[in-house]
C-alpha cells in the first residue's frame, strides 16, 4: 500500500468515525426482574406500630421487612386494631388470600389473653387461621408466641402466658407453622395510649421492643429460605 492510499484510508476512517456520535444515558445498573416474594403481617395494634412514636416507620413488621426480606418483596400489613383471632379470620385472612403470600407472620392472642385463660375455640380458630394460610401456596407461616402482659397482675401474668403459649404451640404443630418465641420480649407496660384514647392494656410496645420482635422474626426467618411467588 502506497503512502498516498494509506493517507486516504486514514482520512476516510476518520470521516466515517465522525459520522457516528451521541452520548449514552448513564445511571445505576438495571435491576434484574425476577419473581417477587410477598409478605403479609396478620396481627393487632403492635403490628400497626401502636405504642411507637412513629407508627409507620417503627412497627415491627416494617422493621422486619426493611432489614430481613429481599429487595423485591411486597409487604402487606393486614393487621387491624384490637384484633382477636376470630376477627382476623373474618377480615385479615381474605386480605392474605388475595395477596397469595410466600411468608406470613401471625401475632395474635393479646386481646384474648387480657380477657382470661384460653378457651377451646381460641385454639380451634387459631388452627383454622394457620391452616388456611398454609393452604394458600404452601405458605411459610411464622406465628409469634404469647407475651406476658404488663397490665395483668404478676401472679396471673406468667400462668396465663404459659397457657396461651401451649395453645399457640398446639395450633402451630397441627398446621406446620413455625413458632417464634417472644417470651423474652415482655412488654414494659409503658401504658401507651391506645386506639380509644385510653392506656392500651393489651400489648403496647415501644420502638425498642419493636426492634426485638423484628429480630426474633428475622432469626426464625433465617433458619430456612422462603420460596418466591411468580409475580
Amino acid at each position: 500500500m502506497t503512502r498516498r492510499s494509506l493517507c486516504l484510508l486514514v482520512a476516510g476512517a476518520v470521516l466515517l468515525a465522525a459520522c457516528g456520535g451521541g452520548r449514552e444515558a448513564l445511571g445505576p445498573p438495571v435491576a434484574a426482574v425476577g419473581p417477587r416474594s410477598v409478605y403479609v403481617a396478620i396481627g393487632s395494634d403492635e403490628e400497626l406500630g401502636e405504642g411507637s412514636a412513629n407508627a409507620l416507620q417503627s412497627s415491627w413488621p416494617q422493621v422486619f421487612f426493611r432489614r430481613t426480606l429481599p429487595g423485591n418483596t411486597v409487604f402487606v400489613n393486614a393487621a387491624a386494631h384490637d384484633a382477636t383471632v376470630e376477627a382476623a379470620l373474618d377480615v385479615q385472612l381474605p386480605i392474605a388470600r388475595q395477596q397469595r403470600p410466600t411468608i406470613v407472620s401471625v401475632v395474635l392472642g393479646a386481646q384474648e389473653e387480657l380477657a382470661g385463660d384460653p378457651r377451646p375455640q381460641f385454639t380451634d380458630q387459631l388452627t383454622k387461621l394457620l391452616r388456611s394460610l398454609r393452604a394458600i401456596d404452601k405458605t411459610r407461616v411464622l406465628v409469634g408466641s404469647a407475651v406476658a402482659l404488663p397490665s395483668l397482675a404478676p401472679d396471673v401474668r406468667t400462668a396465663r402466658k404459659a397457657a396461651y403459649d401451649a395453645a399457640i404451640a398446639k395450633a402451630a404443630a397441627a398446621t406446620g407453622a413455625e413458632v417464634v418465641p417472644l417470651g423474652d420480649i415482655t412488654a414494659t407496660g409503658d401504658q401507651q395510649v391506645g386506639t380509644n384514647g385510653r392506656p392500651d392494656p393489651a400489648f403496647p410496645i415501644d420502638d425498642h421492643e419493636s426492634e426485638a420482635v423484628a429480630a426474633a422474626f428475622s432469626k426464625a426467618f433465617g433458619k430456612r429460605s422462603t420460596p418466591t411467588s411468580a409475580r
Partner: protein
Amino acid sequence: MSWRDAFALARRSVYRRLGRAVLTILAVTLAAALLTSLLVLAGAARTRVLNQLSKGGPLAGIQVAAAAPNLGQLDRDSPQPGPPKPLDDVALRRIRALRGVASVIAVEQAPIVVIPPTRIPRALQAVASRKPGTIQTTMIGTELQDASKLPISIISGRLPAPNAQTEVAVTETFLQRYGIGKRDAATVVGMQLEIGSPRKYAFGNVRVRGRWTKQTIVGVVAQQAANGEVLTGASSVEAARSWTAGGEQIGDSIGPDSSPYAGLFVIAAGLDQIGPVRSRITQVGYSTSAPENLINSVQRYLHVIEIVLSGIGVIALVIAGLGITNAMLASVRERRREIGVLKAIGARDRDVRHVFLLEAGLLGLAGGLLGTVGGWGIARTLGSVVNRYLSHQGLVGVQVGMPAVVALGGIVGATVLALLAGTVPAQRAAGLPARQAMGDE
C-alpha cells in the same frame, strides 16, 4: 496530453510552491471547518428542537387532562381545565381513534406514602440541609418505553427500566425535601425508599393499611407529565392503585382519584395537526394543553438562525475561493515560461486548462478534507460545552453527530468551489499564446 500527465504536472506544481499551497489549503480548511461545524451544530439544534416538535417529541404532544374543557379558554396553550371528568378506557379509545392522532400514552397516578431511609448516603449528608420524615405524595406511572415522547428530562441517573418492579425516579420536589437542588441530584441516586400504598378501613376514625415495596432511586427527572414526586412503570402504579381502590369509601383524604388515568399524552401525526387534534379532543369533552404558539415561534427563530449560520459559512467559503483565485493567478504569472514550453511541445489550450483546474481541485480537496474533520472536531468540542451547561440546567444534552451528507458536502463543496475559483486563472493560462508566454520571459 492525458489526464494522468495533467495530474502529475498539477501535483508537481503544488509541491514546487509548497508554502503558497499550504496557505491556500489552510484558508480552504478554515472555511470548510467553519461551514461544517455550523451545519453540524445547526443539525444538532434541529434534532434537539425541531425534530422533537415535528416528529412527535414532548413539545409536539398534547396533554389531555381528566377534566372537561374550559370553553372560555380554548385558544390558550395552557388553559385552566374545567370541572374534573373521569378519563377512562372508553375515552382513551375514542381519542386514539381521532384523525391526526399518531399515538396516545396514558399517565396513571396513585397516592403513596414514602419512608425515606433512616441512614442517608454520606454524599447526601454533606449537602442536605434537612431530613424528611414520612412523605405523603403521588406516584406517577407510564409505559416507560415511550418515555422519550413525554415531557420528561433526566437530571441525573436514568429512568427506571420499563419492566423493573423495584426502581423509581424522583423529581426536583423530592430533592427539596432534603433541601438540595438539581446540582446535587446525583446524591440521592441509589438510595432505597419504602413506598406504601394506603387502603382505608373504618375503625373509630379512618385507618389505613399499607402495601409496601422497596424501591431504589435510579434517577432524578424534571417532568410535566402529571403532579407527583415519584415516577415509575405503569404496572407498579396499577398495583398500587388497585390496592388502594380495594379500601372502604370513607371521607376523601386518601384514596385513588376517580379517574383511571391522571392524563393522556397525545402525539399528533404532524406539527400542523396539533391544532385540529386539540379541537377534536375538545369535542370529545376533555381539556387539552399544547405549546402551539411556542412551537410556531421556535420554528421561525430556528429557521432564521439556520439562514444566518449558512450565510456565515458561505461567506467564509467565498473568501477562501477568492484566495484560491488569487494564488492561482500568481501561479499563472510565475509559470508563463512553463506554459509557453508546454504549448511549444504541442500542449493544447485545454491541456493547460486541465493542469490548472486540477491544481485548484487538489487544493480544494485537501482543504475540504482537513476542514471537514476539523469542523467536526470543533462541533464536538462546542457540543460537550453545551451539554455540560444543559446538564447543569437539568436538561437533556444534544447529540452532536456528523450526518454523512454534511461530511460529503464539505469535501465535495470545497473541491467544486476551488474548481470554480480556478476557472479564471486556468482560462487565462490556456489563453496565453506560446510565443508571448516565452517572449515575456
